[in-house]
């Protein structure tokens, strides 16, 4: 049976998120010839702009305008989608902080299957879809089969599918009249921007980045010494900030800073997608990790499989002695 395939478009400041075109190319796997419908929820002029933008790439765009959707409160968005989606729909959304908020509960209310953080998939057969996900921070992958006979909600990892560049244009349909009451038990109040730190790692060319493998607060010094020897600054992964060993402004990743250094030294960092999501501009990556199978070695240019607590001080000493 043919399922109607939808993508849910996240947007900000009147622009569709980069994920939208990636969702469109993932949707093509599910529906090679069939139409794909983009759903855009929001309010006001910014919503219209995003709908127009999507209509230039997508055969059908559903506009869902409501004041309660002006900010994407997942609880309200869910209510709206449950009302407008046909039964057995397959909906793709981004595995980002909105998708994580929205997807699981939506699948329950639609009574459909749910698979999150999909990195690859093959065309459905006999009402089942085979998808690829990762576990343990990317150390291993799994093939997953998902029964989509009753519909599905699938959240897609950023960057896993190429952006669709050649989508055919289409029309915007205003379906706002189908939206019912969106009042819900959660109300958006405001956004508080992340605090600035004493260094701006987004402007640095050489970053020496410490991960959980540094093991102890006192060992941060090891990264600092190397950074000094190289003329760079210290950044880090999330667990280092969670432990309060370094300030939040030093964190690289999707929930931290997006950096674009020329050289990135990852010390005791496993290479989770949330960490790598903050690393842009194709830097030269050096990874030091005692686990030869750590995912970071797949993206690094040069790898050292060793205990960083032994290797890095030695490296620093040899750099300094060559001056």
């Amino acid at each position: 049976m043919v399922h109607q395939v939808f993508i849910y478009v996240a947007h900000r400041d009147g622009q569709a998120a980069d994920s939208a075109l990636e969702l469109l190319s993932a949707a093509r796997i599910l529906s090679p010839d069939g139409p794909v419908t983009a759903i855009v929820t929001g309010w006001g002029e910014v919503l219209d702009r995003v709908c127009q933008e999507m209509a230039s790439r997508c055969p059908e765009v559903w506009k869902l305008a409501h004041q309660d959707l002006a900010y994407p409160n997942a609880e309200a968005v869910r209510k709206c989608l449950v009302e407008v989606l046909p039964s057995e729909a397959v909906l793709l959304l981004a595995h980002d902080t909105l998708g994580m908020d929205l997807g699981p509960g939506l699948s329950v209310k639609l009574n459909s299957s749910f698979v999150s953080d999909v990195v690859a998939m093959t065309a459905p057969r006999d009402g089942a879809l085979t998808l690829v996900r990762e576990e343990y921070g990317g150390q291993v992958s799994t093939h997953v089969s998902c029964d989509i006979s009753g519909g599905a909600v699938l959240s897609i990892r950023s960057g896993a599918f190429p952006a669709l560049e050649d989508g055919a244009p289409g029309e915007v349909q205003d379906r706002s009249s189908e939206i019912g009451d969106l009042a819900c038990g959660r109300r958006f109040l405001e956004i508080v921007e992340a605090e600035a730190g004493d260094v701006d790692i987004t402007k640095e060319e050489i970053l020496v980045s410490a991960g959980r493998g540094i093991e102890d607060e006192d060992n941060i010094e090891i990264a600092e010494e190397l950074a000094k020897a190289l003329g760079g600054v210290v950044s880090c992964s999330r667990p280092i900030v969670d432990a309060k060993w370094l300030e939040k402004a030093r964190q690289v990743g999707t929930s931290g800073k997006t950096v674009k250094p020329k050289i990135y030294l990852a010390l005791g960092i496993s290479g989770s997608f949330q960490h790598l999501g903050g690393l842009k501009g194709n830097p030269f990556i050096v990874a030091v990790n005692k686990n030869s199978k750590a995912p970071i070695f797949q993206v690094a240019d040069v790898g050292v499989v060793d205990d960083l607590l032994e290797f890095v001080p030695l490296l620093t000493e040899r750099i300094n002695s060559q001056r």
Partner: protein
Amino acid sequence: MEILVCVKKVPDPAENEIVVSRDGSDIERDDLVYSVNEWDNYAVEEAIQLVEEHGGSVTVVSVGDEESDEIIRRELAMGADAGNLLDDEAFHYSDGRGVAAILAHAARRGSYDLILTGAQAEDAAAQVGGMLAAMLDVPYASLVVRVRVMDGKKLKIAREIDGGNLEINEIDLPCALSIQTGINEPRYVGIRGIRKTASVQVPVLGAAQLGVDPATVGEAGAKVRKLDYFVPEMGEGAEILQGSREEMADQLIARLKGRGVIQ
């Protein structure tokens, strides 16, 4: 405030290298060191702090095997007041939806103001919390890094979104929240604390006690199934330096010189 916290036993990523088993049906589980899912530890700490400030009690539950009582005892040692293990033959190989359904039945046995889960489990998918909330028909927010009790009826919470920005929301009680790491500093549980709870019998609840229809959970109810484990072939990968520690350091210095980092 009556708080329910869902905790899961997972292989500790800091203590293990996860490798695929020979036939690819699972990961290699011999010699794995297990612990409480990192995110869940933050959730339990948050619950304990809320109860310390506002009164009430903390109950932990886990869907697991007969050995999962050890993590419940650990959370009791941390300061949780009660714990239940949800275990039944019928629960094995549940998908996320199945786990959420079992937890929902456990939640309905009490009258909880707040239900906490971790944002995600090491071996899973960031799904159970949102599913559980939808099944219980209570409001939900994910990736929470701050909780303030406003009055007896609502919370003010911060969700961490892209770039570390905070999205501030108001949410009505009862509700469910998934907790992000860094929200607090989970207290240390020493050997002595663990020993104190070593003899506690953790009550085990099965499908019958919970009122779970076995056909809806476990392998029977799963719409999502893991087929195998594998390690994907990824591009070229890094040039792995060889030799003694000194030789590797010198090779690395040469590469960095080639990039103009070191003059």
